[in-house]
């Protein structure tokens, strides 16, 4: 039960080290600047490099009551395409939900892999790894995925998310890394592909 449609529930799938937890928080904090209430939390376990992990974001018009898990997400974000053969990333996805996957494949091809034929859920793809390699020189697909999320949902302007990222990490990262991530967000918002 997503208590009302005024709350958006997002589930992030990634592997330890790809930044899914950070992505869930970056998106939540950006949504706060719109005056929304937020939650962001990982599925708690012992974090290991490369192991499948989940993280969650809730964005709501009203204060968020529940601290239960997200079981019926509106949006599923998959940072690693190799997870598709390991876990059912569509589990609990709302009938009219959205799934955004980091892959070079086309959305139609992914729909087949996900067994979503005949379902209303919308499938989007983005080469987040490629974008991350281009701007950061390594594969950290989390900020491109945040960019793809806002590109699809239009919940926030990519510029606003990029600005929040800059504020949050100024002083923690070098300017070139911040600029690289900003570029990741902006490019992914534009390049995300629909069916």
């Amino acid at each position, binding site marked *: *039960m997503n208590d009302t449609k005024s709350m958006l529930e997002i589930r992030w799938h990634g592997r330890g080290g790809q930044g899914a937890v950070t992505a869930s928080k970056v998106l939540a*904090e950006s949504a706060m600047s719109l005056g929304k209430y*937020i939650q*962001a*939390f990982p599925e708690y376990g012992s974090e290991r490099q490369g192991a499948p992990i989940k993280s969650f974001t809730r964005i709501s018009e009203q204060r*968020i*009551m529940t*601290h*239960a*898990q997200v079981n019926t997400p509106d949006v599923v974000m998959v940072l690693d395409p190799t997870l598709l053969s390991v876990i059912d990333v569509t589990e609990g996805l709302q009938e009219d939900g959205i799934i955004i996957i980091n892959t070079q494949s086309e959305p139609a091809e992914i729909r087949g892999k996900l067994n979503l034929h005949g379902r209303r859920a919308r499938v989007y793809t983005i080469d987040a790894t490629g974008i991350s390699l281009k701007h950061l020189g390594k594969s950290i697909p989390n900020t491109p995925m945040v960019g793809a999320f806002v590109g699809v949902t239009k919940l926030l302007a990519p510029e606003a998310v990029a600005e929040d990222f800059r504020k949050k990490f100024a002083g923690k990262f070098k300017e070139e890394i911040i600029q690289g991530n900003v570029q990741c967000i902006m490019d992914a918002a534009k390049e995300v592909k629909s069916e």
Partner: protein
Amino acid sequence: MPELLALTGNDAVAYAMKQINPDVVAAYPITPQTSLMQKFADFVADGEVDTEMVLVESEHSAMSAVVGSQAAGARTMTATSACGLALMHEVLYIAAGYRLPVVMPVVNRALSAPINIQGDHSDTMGARDAGWIHIFSENAQEAYENTLQAIRIAEHPEVLTPVMVTLDGFIISHGVETVQIFDTARVQQFVGEYKPAFTLLNPHKPMTLGSLDFSDFYFEHKVSQLQGINYSPKVILEVGREFQRTFGGDCCYEHFEAYRMDDAEMAVIVLGSTAGATRMVVDDLRSRGIAAGMVKIRTFRPFPYEELAATLKKVKAVAVMDRSLAYGGDGGPVHIEVRSAMYGVNNAPLMANYIYGLGGKPIDLVHIESVFTDMQQAIATGKFPRRIGYLNLKE
């Protein structure tokens, strides 16, 4: 001006500690310590507080250093979690026995064995009779506000009793949510300056702590220790009301929150983070004409027996939720207290206990709904399906 920030529960409590700006903080800097103390250590390193930070070699030593420092007249805090609290156990009684107004946030987590680092209430329930006041928090906002109020409660001259403020491990401690942080100057005005009436380092009023006390006066001293915690309910309410007046917050400032209880026929009793989901289930049932209610306990020690009995005697069925087990006891510790509160009440409601969430086992709306379904059945048949049930347990 208050500001809205995206903070974990741990960050929110560390922020409270920063605003309190304690004279001394002693802490064990390794697991089971949490990011709460890590964040506070950042404030110390960045010069944002004046606190003398003492890093020690164990949690037993942390509480020992806290006791020494507080007895010397310094406002002193620490924080811990899980087996860290267990290792402090001996010294918890000493802080309470010396009537030292120590405030300690505790991130509620499971105890070994088997090894588990996730959330449940086993750790602080093990310390329920150590003489401390226990205040539970539903969310990061309450953890922040309870920590600020705890200083005033503990240091009240008629109370002088240590306080632990708890927050559910991982669910609250490591989850980011929207937290309203109040203006530091106003917070510091509310918390006030620490002016202890008795300190070890005052040569004009010499005193002894840690003396031998055999059968001649030990019993008398332990009974006199009750005065502080028995006086505290009044102070907890006064401090809560003043906090609400000052900052305009809308958290729970009572000993418990009675949600939609005025005309309820059935009530779930719950501690901590599960209250939010329970409130949602209550609202949903109400929209379908079912007279559901919830009681969220905020102060577990001292336990609000009389007020709770007055609230519960009007309902037909009560389900007590426990996130820990009292092995060999009657289910979980909250259940034991609520049964005790209802003894002697005429036409007392039917009651059952539901154990849930040990070691971080998820609790979803469906599980809470199933508890209300059991209560409806109990009201219809005069009997709960079982005295003690287990939610989301693989059988």
